[in-house]
């Protein structure tokens, strides 16, 4: 195929008065200028040979860009994700070529499946060495293609401003996602005439389809006539900043609304119409009643298999309305009756005037009744246990109490994550930061660093298991070096708990490679000069959490919890949402 070497200019840009002068500079200086222009003033990364010219420029611009040295490139991507998730801004991760670049892949894949806007910049060997298996050469553009929204290799300095502008635009617009820009060393070193214009459009790319008012009217009619309407919202509400519109919708029509794991916190936990989480370890009522509602209104969510359970028995009785920005998600898993394409905020704002005030008291009562069953069977025992060992749930309850529900909770992956998402109280949006789609263990610690740096005014509490903690434990070094005051709660059950739970339920208790013999987490924290405490008794818990929250600076609180507790409710893999188990 006759590919052009240089990217053709098929983009539109914002002309800003007084900014049309060209300044002679190196490619690496241009990279720094681009980041400043895009407001990316806190970035995460790790230096190395092929990215050294860029780091040299960063050194000269320390006052303008705060570069955080993570201890592993994966940590840089997760930190960038945490930064993006709490702020809505684009996170940036930087790495060198070869292993530096390949170490980014897990975070990039995570950002892709969870629609997180990040830009990753990798150094690359000199252009004349491309394809020669040079030292630390790897085809990172090839490797990252399936897990990026867009990627591009720059081989000459002149391409830098346009490609960087395009990278930030693509990462942030429409359904956000990760972008990787690979820049050869010669492109970083070359001098050229720099000139920057922000990207405002790419001709082959439609960020969000326009909202079709006719479809909205059809949806409104269905919603207005529904007897048992049910909303399931996802992260699209948060990414589209449609929280207020969603709140108005559910209040006006009095529709019970549940959330996917990534949708958590868009509506406060205590809102009377917030009926909890859907999915495998979600709440009993919203899962059960998915198969009883007459109109299912899905907003900014993608019917992940962890949400739907067995598709053949998912909401078959209901008419399905899907508000969705990404046309490829419509009818992908669940057939919709009405699809309203477009940005969630715009769609819901268009919908609201057509929605009639309504009430669904007897339908809402069903949610309350089922909540009562779940409370008696599960929640009560999780939050106010009578047994000796500590539960993860009571730790979350204590965190809620000490932070008044204002904290951002950054969870890792596994049992503690499900408990955190089930029981954390959220007053504010963008407060539940977790790895949803990819389920990346090791996410929480570095993501908490990024989140706290993007929102220093907020309490950021990382809740991690003893397994995932050790996957990125080296980022304690980053915490120590930057003095970022994150609070880390290790829920230690000396097991890879979620896998153990499956082994118990589905593999006759054969605990294959799930028991962990752990190090002294307190000594490790102290080795990094981070305050730390371990608790294992109920009477110590409250004081310990309080002390953690009141201590200035970072803090590690290890809570030794019951070894073999299970997370319920649970929809077994391959089962229907109405086959949800309470025990």
């Amino acid at each position, binding site marked *: *195929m*006759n*590919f*052009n*070497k240089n*990217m*053709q200019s*098929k983009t*539109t840009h914002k002309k800003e008065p007084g900014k049309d002068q060209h300044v002679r500079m190196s490619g690496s200086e241009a990279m720094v200028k681009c980041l400043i222009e895009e407001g990316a003033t806190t970035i995460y990364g790790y230096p190395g040979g092929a990215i050294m010219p860029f780091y040299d420029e960063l050194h000269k611009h320390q006052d303008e860009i705060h570069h955080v040295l993570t201890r592993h490139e994966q940590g840089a991507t997760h930190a960038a994700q945490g930064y993006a998730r709490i702020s809505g801004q684009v996170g940036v991760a930087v790495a060198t070529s070869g292993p530096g670049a390949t170490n980014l892949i897990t975070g990039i894949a995570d950002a892709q499946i969870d629609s997180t806007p990040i830009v990753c910049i990798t150094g690359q060997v000199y252009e004349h060495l491309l394809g020669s298996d040079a030292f630390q050469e790897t085809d990172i*553009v*090839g490797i990252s*293609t*399936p897990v990026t*929204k*867009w*990627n*591009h*290799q720059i081989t000459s300095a002149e391409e830098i401003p346009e490609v960087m502008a395009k990278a930030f635009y*693509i990462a942030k617009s429409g359904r956000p996602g990760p972008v990787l820009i690979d820049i050869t060393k010669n492109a970083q070193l070359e001098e050229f005439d720099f000139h920057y214009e922000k990207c405002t*459009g*790419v*001709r*082959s*790319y439609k960020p969000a389809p326009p909202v079709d008012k006719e479809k909205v009217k059809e949806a409104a009619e269905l919603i207005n006539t529904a007897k048992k309407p049910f909303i399931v919202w996802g992260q699209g509400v948060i990414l589209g900043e449609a929280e207020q519109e969603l709140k108005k919708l559910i209040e006006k029509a009095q529709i019970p609304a549940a959330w996917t794991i990534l949708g958590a916190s868009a509506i406060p936990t205590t809102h009377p119409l917030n009926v909890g989480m859907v999915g495998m370890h979600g709440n009993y009522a919203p899962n059960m009643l998915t198969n009883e509602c007459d109109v299912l209104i899905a907003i900014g969510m993608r019917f992940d298999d962890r949400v739907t359970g067995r598709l053949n028995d998912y909401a078959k009785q209901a008419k399905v309305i899907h508000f969705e920005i*990404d*046309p*490829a*998600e*419509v*009818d*992908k898993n669940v057939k919709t009756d009405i699809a309203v394409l477009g940005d969630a905020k715009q769609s819901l704002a268009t919908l609201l005037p057509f929605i009639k005030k309504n009430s669904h008291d007897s339908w809402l009562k069903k949610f309350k009744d089922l909540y009562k069953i779940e409370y008696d069977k599960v929640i009560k025992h999780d939050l106010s246990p009578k047994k000796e060992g500590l539960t993860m749930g009571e730790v979350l309850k204590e965190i809620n109490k000490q932070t008044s529900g204002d904290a951002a909770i950054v969870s890792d992956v596994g049992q503690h994550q499900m408990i955190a998402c089930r029981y954390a109280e959220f007053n504010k949006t963008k407060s539940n930061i977790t790895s949803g789609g990819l389920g990346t263990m090791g996410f929480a610690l570095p993501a908490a660093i990024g989140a706290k740096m993007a929102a220093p005014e907020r309490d950021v509490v990382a809740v991690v298991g003893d397994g995932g903690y050790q996957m990125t434990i080296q980022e304690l070094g980053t915490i120590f070096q930057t003095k970022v005051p994150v609070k880390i709660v290790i829920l230690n059950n000396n097991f890879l708990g979620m896998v153990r739970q499956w082994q118990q339920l589905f593999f006759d208790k054969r605990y294959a490679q799930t028991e962990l013999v752990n190090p002294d987490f307190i000594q490790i924290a102290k080795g990094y000069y981070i305050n730390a405490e371990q608790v294992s008794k109920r009477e110590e818990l409250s004081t310990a959490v309080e002390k953690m929250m009141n201590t200035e600076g970072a803090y590690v609180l290890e809570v030794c919890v019951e070894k073999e507790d299970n997370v319920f409710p649970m929809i077994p893999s391959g089962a229907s949402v109405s086959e949800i188990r309470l025990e």
Partner: protein
Amino acid sequence: MEQEIIKFTISIYTENNIGLLNRISAIFQKRHINVDSLNTSASEIEGVSRFTIVVRVTEEQMKKIIGQIDKQVEVIKAYYHTDEETIYQESCLFKIKSDLLFEERQIQNIIKDSDARIVTVNREFFVLEKSGRRNEVDMLHRELSAFGIMQFVRSGRIAVTKDEMKVTEMLEAFQK
């Protein structure tokens, strides 16, 4: 509810950028789908490339794949069509020993009857070109195989659609 597997011709208009072939083929790879043929070339629009890909999938799968192709940043528009909705051809080349052309009268008849074209002849070999549908190319291949073929190569399918694909309008709309 098992759906019927159908042969579809996919037409994708794209920017002409490095790596896009990889990005598009990855979408088939992640769904574990084998591609029957793939052709990339210029399109009727300057600077715009066109992929023609043939796959056998259900229509439901096809819609999902098209959605995932279409959302790629550098894809302008992706379409899928059935055989009935397109005019399609393949092209092939045969390299055959020149001696046969003179010794085997039958070969000359085959060439004439099949509407194949002799591209070049020299002392050692001659090259035959044939464009047509897959079954015509297959038939010619079978007939010539009896005499011995030195080399054979066939292109992927190329196809134009009976209905319009309004790509130019889409691009013009962006300029406004």
